[in-house]
């Protein structure tokens, strides 16, 4: 790299330098687009321009899987190998791509055009097996398509959207984003107008009365969060949209953002108005470049139409929105790690308390919400809490999106009022299993979830019924596994996912995810040793009880649930051939 043209970096330094450390990820993204990777002199120049100590610049580059210190191929081919794609044959696709690229996964042939990687869930589960080639999403791949895959030449992947209700997804499924005009024609931005007329307190009490709880996984009451941030002392305040969606099996937020970006934006503006924030952020995972572009265009449209910016809609209220692109780190979906990432740091979760409503982004009061949660706000404000509560049950009001993947006839995004049964979702909406197959298990809530079986098929999908059944709703993942599937292979992949994604801050998760993955690898290979079940239990409960953040606290959730349901899977196995 002797001929590195550092002058080409100047415009990037000029743009991002004055903003300081918070611009570190945007600057690294821009530089990597220019050079293909981030060589040392480039990293040094960025550090100097932004005032970030050099050791911390390389610390940040190393943290994020999508930043590269070393040269990579002209094209990066990320083949998802997590459960939903694995069920559909991802390993064969990966092998074919590596063979064609002439290097094993994660490596680049000398002078090679491609770097092929085994990637964590890309949020394209309804199109499994899926891959991302640079910015191009590819789906329904087979090893025979490998030339098209490496050329990033594939058909568009229209979202598969269905369900009993089409409220949150009213504008989804067109195969393209709804325009501002289409969104308005369907009643869009009426909620914002009503909110501005009613005042912030009225908005918050309506959200509380509606009983909305967060859809990002933790099910925290949204009205209480907004109220907390509103009442917290200190300005500026921030609202943040969490669009880091990386829980394996989850793709709902991608569909919402790609097909109806204004719905999330309207919710974000209402939330900002409710708490008195004049700056909003949307943090979109690095693997969603298409959603990023669509939201970027929608923000421009909304600004031009007066829904954003100074004195929006003549209300005297000002709001700026800034988009941030992640760079390959599941942990950055954890709210405090996400703040660190916006601040230009490694995505290490913070110790809580203090909580974000008091001490969030840049140490200021912050309301952070999931995309789907925000999309509920316009609905609540327009219809009113009483009408909103017509959907769902008393304790789980409203509409809910379910990401159905795996062994069903029609994987896709299904919207329904809370209270439908698992049977209705799997068999009536998603078309049931393929002919001749029986249901073996359902992975509920994602990698951080738990397994259900045929016995749970009549369970009502509400927060209260699921809690009773010991099944986490999480981010709405419902992944079906039929009778021919090897659950040990599924568990092995979950184990690998958490080991890959642990941030490494706290001991239980940093070491526990690694040890768990090693044992699950043995179990899947038919080499379980005496005592492995006990080791898995100790590691699992230690991560659950003692980890610092939700990642470690749920990293053994699916494993521990499988151990309860199928203890035989983990028994000592006679050593295989060659042992």
């Amino acid at each position: 790299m002797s001929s590195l043209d550092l002058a080409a970096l100047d415009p990037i330094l000029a743009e991002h330098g004055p903003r300081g450390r918070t611009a570190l990820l945007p600057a690294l993204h821009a530089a990597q687009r220019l050079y293909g990777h981030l060589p040392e002199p480039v990293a040094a120049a960025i550090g100097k321009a932004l005032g970030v100590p050099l050791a911390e610049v390389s610390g940040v580059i190393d943290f994020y899987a999508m930043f590269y210190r070393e040269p990579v191929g002209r094209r990066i081919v990320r083949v998802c190998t997590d459960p939903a794609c694995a069920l559909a044959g991802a390993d064969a696709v990966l092998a074919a791509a590596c063979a064609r690229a002439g290097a094993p996964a994660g490596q680049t042939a000398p002078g090679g055009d491609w770097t092929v990687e085994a990637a964590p869930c890309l949020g394209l589960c309804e199109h499994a097996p899926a891959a991302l080639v640079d910015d191009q999403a590819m789906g329904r791949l087979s090893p025979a398509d490998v030339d098209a895959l490496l050329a990033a030449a594939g058909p568009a992947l229209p979202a598969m959207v269905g369900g009993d209700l089409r409220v949150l997804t009213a504008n989804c499924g067109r195969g393209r984003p709804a325009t501002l005009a289409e969104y308005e024609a369907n009643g869009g931005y009426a909620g914002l107008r009503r909110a501005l007329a009613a005042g912030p307190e009225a908005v918050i009490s309506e959200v509380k009365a509606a009983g909305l709880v967060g859809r990002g996984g933790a099910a925290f009451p949204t009205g209480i969060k907004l109220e907390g941030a509103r009442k917290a002392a200190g300005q500026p305040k921030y609202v943040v949209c969490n669009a880091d969606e990386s829980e394996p099996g989850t793709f709902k937020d991608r569909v919402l953002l790609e097909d109806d970006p204004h719905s999330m934006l309207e919710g974000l503006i209402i939330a900002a108005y409710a708490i008195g924030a004049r700056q909003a952020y949307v943090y979109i995972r690095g693997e969603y470049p298409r959603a990023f572009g669509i939201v970027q265009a929608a923000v421009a449209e909304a600004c031009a139409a007066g829904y954003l910016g100074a004195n929006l809609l003549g209300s005297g209220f000002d709001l700026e929105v800034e988009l941030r692109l992640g760079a390959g780190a599941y942990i950055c979906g954890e709210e405090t790690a996400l703040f660190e990432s916006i601040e230009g740091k490694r995505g290490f979760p913070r110790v809580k308390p203090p909580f974000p409503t008091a001490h969030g982004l840049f140490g200021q009061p912050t309301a952070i919400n999931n995309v789907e949660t925000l999309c509920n706000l316009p609905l609540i404000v327009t219809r009113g809490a009483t009408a909103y509560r017509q959907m769902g049950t008393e304790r789980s009001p409203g509409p809910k999106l379910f990401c159905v993947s795996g062994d069903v006839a029609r994987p896709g995004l299904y919207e329904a009022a809370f209270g439908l049964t698992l049977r209705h979702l799997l068999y009536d909406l998603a078309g049931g299993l393929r002919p001749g197959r029986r249901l073996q298990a359902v992975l509920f809530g994602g990698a951080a979830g738990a397994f259900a079986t045929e016995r749970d098929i009549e369970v009502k999908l509400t927060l209260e019924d699921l809690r009773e059944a010991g099944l986490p709703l999480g981010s709405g993942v419902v992944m079906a596994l039929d009778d021919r599937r090897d659950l040990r292979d599924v568990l092995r992949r979950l184990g690998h996912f958490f080991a890959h994604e642990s941030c490494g801050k706290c001991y239980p998760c940093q070491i526990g995810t690694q040890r768990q993955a090693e044992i699950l690898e043995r179990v899947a290979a038919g080499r379980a040793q005496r005592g492995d079940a006990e080791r898995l239990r100790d590691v699992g409960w230690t991560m659950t009880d003692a980890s610092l953040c939700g990642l470690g606290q749920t990293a053994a959730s699916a494993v521990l649930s499988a151990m309860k349901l199928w203890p035989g899977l983990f028994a000592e196995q006679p050593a295989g051939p060659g042992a």
Partner: protein
Amino acid sequence: MSIDVHLTIDGQPVTVPAGTTLLQAAAEAGQAIPTICYHEHCTANALCRLCVVEVEGARVLAPACVAQVSDGMQVRTRGERVDRSRRTILEMLASAVDLSEAPEIQRQLEAYEAQPGRFPEAERREPALIDDNPMFVRDYGQCVLCWRCVQVCADDAQYTFAINFEGRGYATQIGTFFDRPLPETTCVFCGQCVGVCPTGALKPKREWLLEQGQTPDEIMALTRSERRRKQRK
């Protein structure tokens, strides 16, 4: 004016000022809670989790080094859950790195009847020792990632920012910008990192050379020539 908070620790009533950590409150009640990452003069990041205790009504265990007392709290510093977590953390740590020069952690392994060999076929962290400066060597095969060295090098003391993290997850290691030798970084060789390291990962060069079997005279000669080399640069 501080407000008094009443709680119980292992059944024993304790009264301490608001803002006290459970670690301090337990010490007042005569209960020693084991720690690894905690250091009086460093920011507490609650990352080793050896100090976890059970708080009645809480879903997960609480890190005593940062969790603060509150009125009516019932804290248990030992018990099945606490002991399993502590023992497993210690066993996992022993499966990952060389603890032979960490006597305090060795004592904890014994106290919790942890088996250092609990995890067969475990991938260990065994990077090569780095000897790139005249003052100290870095043997990250002994590093427990307590973060103290990074913190004293940064805003906890020196504001030098010579070292930070490489990799993530299990592959995390302390390192310099693009693995530059320390003399080529902002390092001023204040030695504070060596002072706060709880294991043998950061060790004065002289001590290390003596361990390697060199005589004090040989060491003198060596450091003199290293200093000359540096001046010439």
